[in-house]
């Protein structure tokens, strides 16, 4: 995916893949602090003046945290000044009922689950009631809230194809059928199998819904929207 997208750059070495602990809360130094470290190093070492950021899922919340809280860290304003826009692939802007399902439980499951390392801060944060609060306070860009300082463009997955005779269902290498039959019970009819469309479209602006732009009008499941499926990589390449 990355190698395909960077072909759209005038200088194909001017890219960085961020590797931070995004299992942590968005304000954690291991998450947004590390993100700021790596972006600042990239900007300074390569002399970057114009940057497109591509995120997937909760990565969108990490970038929204940075753009919503420029005063948190003196490095943030400089990073924001270099961002042309953010292309957010299936961002979990309003969280997901599946985070509620795996987190809520009762005290017993929560306590033991944490001890056994089942859950991460990031999953906890993406519970729907939690994201409702963060969207009303620490995060910008949702309905009724001031917009973000730079554009936040959503690519939205609307459905999951699991037909056994359809090879396209397997792009990404996952046979999702069985798990999705269960997880879709928590989601409404417009979802990518992990996030409802309303969550993916809650912040910023919808760039496009999958079936309007993907080859063969294919939908993008949550696993497919971070992979080289149905021409997504080409669309992103042409946007940078």
């Amino acid at each position, binding site marked *: 995916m990355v190698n395909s997208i960077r072909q759209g750059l005038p200088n194909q070495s001017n890219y960085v893949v961020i590797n931070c602990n995004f299992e942590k*809360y968005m*304000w*954690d130094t291991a998450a947004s602090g590390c993100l700021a470290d790596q972006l600042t190093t990239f900007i300074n070492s390569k002399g970057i003046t114009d940057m497109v950021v591509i995120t997937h899922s909760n990565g969108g919340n990490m970038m929204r945290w940075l753009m919503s809280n*420029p*005063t*948190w*860290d*003196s490095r*943030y*304003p400089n990073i*924001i000044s270099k961002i042309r826009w953010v292309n957010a692939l299936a961002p979990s802007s309003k969280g*997901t009922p*599946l*985070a*509620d*399902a*795996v987190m*809520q*439980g*009762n*005290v*017993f*499951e929560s306590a*033991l*689950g944490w001890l*056994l390392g*089942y*859950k991460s*801060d990031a*999953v*906890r*944060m993406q*519970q*729907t*009631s*939690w994201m*409702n*609060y963060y969207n*009303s*306070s620490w995060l*910008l860009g949702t309905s*009724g*809230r*001031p*917009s973000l*300082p730079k554009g936040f463009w959503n690519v939205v997955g609307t459905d999951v194809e699991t037909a056994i005779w359809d090879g396209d269902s397997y792009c990404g290498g*996952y046979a*999702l059928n*069985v*798990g*999705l*039959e*269960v*997880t879709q*019970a*928590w989601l409404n009819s417009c979802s990518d*199998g*992990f996030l409802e469309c309303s969550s993916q479209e809650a912040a910023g602006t919808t760039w496009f819904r999958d079936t309007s732009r993907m080859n063969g009008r294919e939908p993008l499941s*949550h*696993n497919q929207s971070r992979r080289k499926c149905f021409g997504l990589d080409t669309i992103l390449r042409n946007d940078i």
Partner: protein
Amino acid sequence: MKKYTLLTAVFACSLISAANSAPQAQWAVQISNQKSALITGKIDSPVVNNNREKVSYSYKLSTGESLDFKAKPFKAQSRQYWLDSTGDKLAAGINLPVSGGETIIRISPLSANKSVKLSAKNIHIKNNGQLKNIEVFADSTDLKATGAAFSDQSIALKINAAAGQLKLIIDSSSASTPFVIHVLEKDSPFVLSINANKASYKVNQPIRIDAGISANNKNRDTTLQGYINRPDGSVLGELNFSKNKDGRYIAELDALGAQGMAQGLWEVHVFAKSKENNVVIMRDAQTSFAVNLNTAAFSGKLSLLKNTVNIGVDVAIEGRYEVRGVLMGTNTEGQLKPFAMTMTADWLKVGENSLALPIDAKSTANSGLSAPFAIKNVQLTNQTYLAPVQTVVEGIKLVDINFSEDLKK
């Protein structure tokens, strides 16, 4: 002719008034002195931001943005419940009440022992005494492939149930292993809804929880239990619900205990039971909110300088504080419209301080808006402990200011 003369006279007076008044900033509502109510002791919460540099930032907003400064509380709705069990209880069989229809049962062994593995062949389900076929069985690999963070040994299955009882029996599970059983009745008309009356509370303010099971828009008699926990997991108190005249159930607790939110939010947990034709309906739900951390407060002092508004802040516990607001001006129809977001943060020591909120003269002059100007939704936050401190939605009035002239001086 008379009317024209009068208008001219009023206009001339206002010009004289403007010429004689220095531009100033005024709080739109009275800011009461809250010094005595501030926390002075130690905050028993993790520190998440120790940065000492002053950082200011502002950027342009579209005047067409429709802003709503009132944070809405979340209304949680649930068609699911959870039960604790153990391996030996599951071997004997446990009863799960269901209201009928498509039912998902998720079974989670809470054990680090990877040998505790569940398969379809050692799970048996009877529905009102009749053995049921499992329509779909998803193991943890199937579940995790969807992107959801299910635990390593969690499995889920789907059946079509008749209203009544499901008896869940699991063969040869380790006797002492604790399990959590999670039941989702996706299409059930019986929905538990809960909400707090605010998204964010002041310290000591009553937290009012509204809860109840309804079906087809009718509230039902419901037995409710619940509690509120703080961000560190400690229990604030149990919720004692009483029925109101609308058939909903209300409980109140005061927001006590100063905590930052680096560990998460304050949470409400509610467990509900109702009955329909002798079939038990069980539902659990959770929602969350924030409580202000009063380590500081707006002092009420304001001063307007060349391109900043200095906002007085009384600080009881030193830390990194941010103030932000939305700059607004008036359009030709007399409506207040946003044109910029402005914010500043700095490390403040105990005592009287101020934070200087920048006003970008260029974006102000280019907004096409004119006086009266204002800064709305002025928020003070403690970045050290990740906590809201104080919000004044009505904000600050900028009086007798002509941005195109005054800010150039």
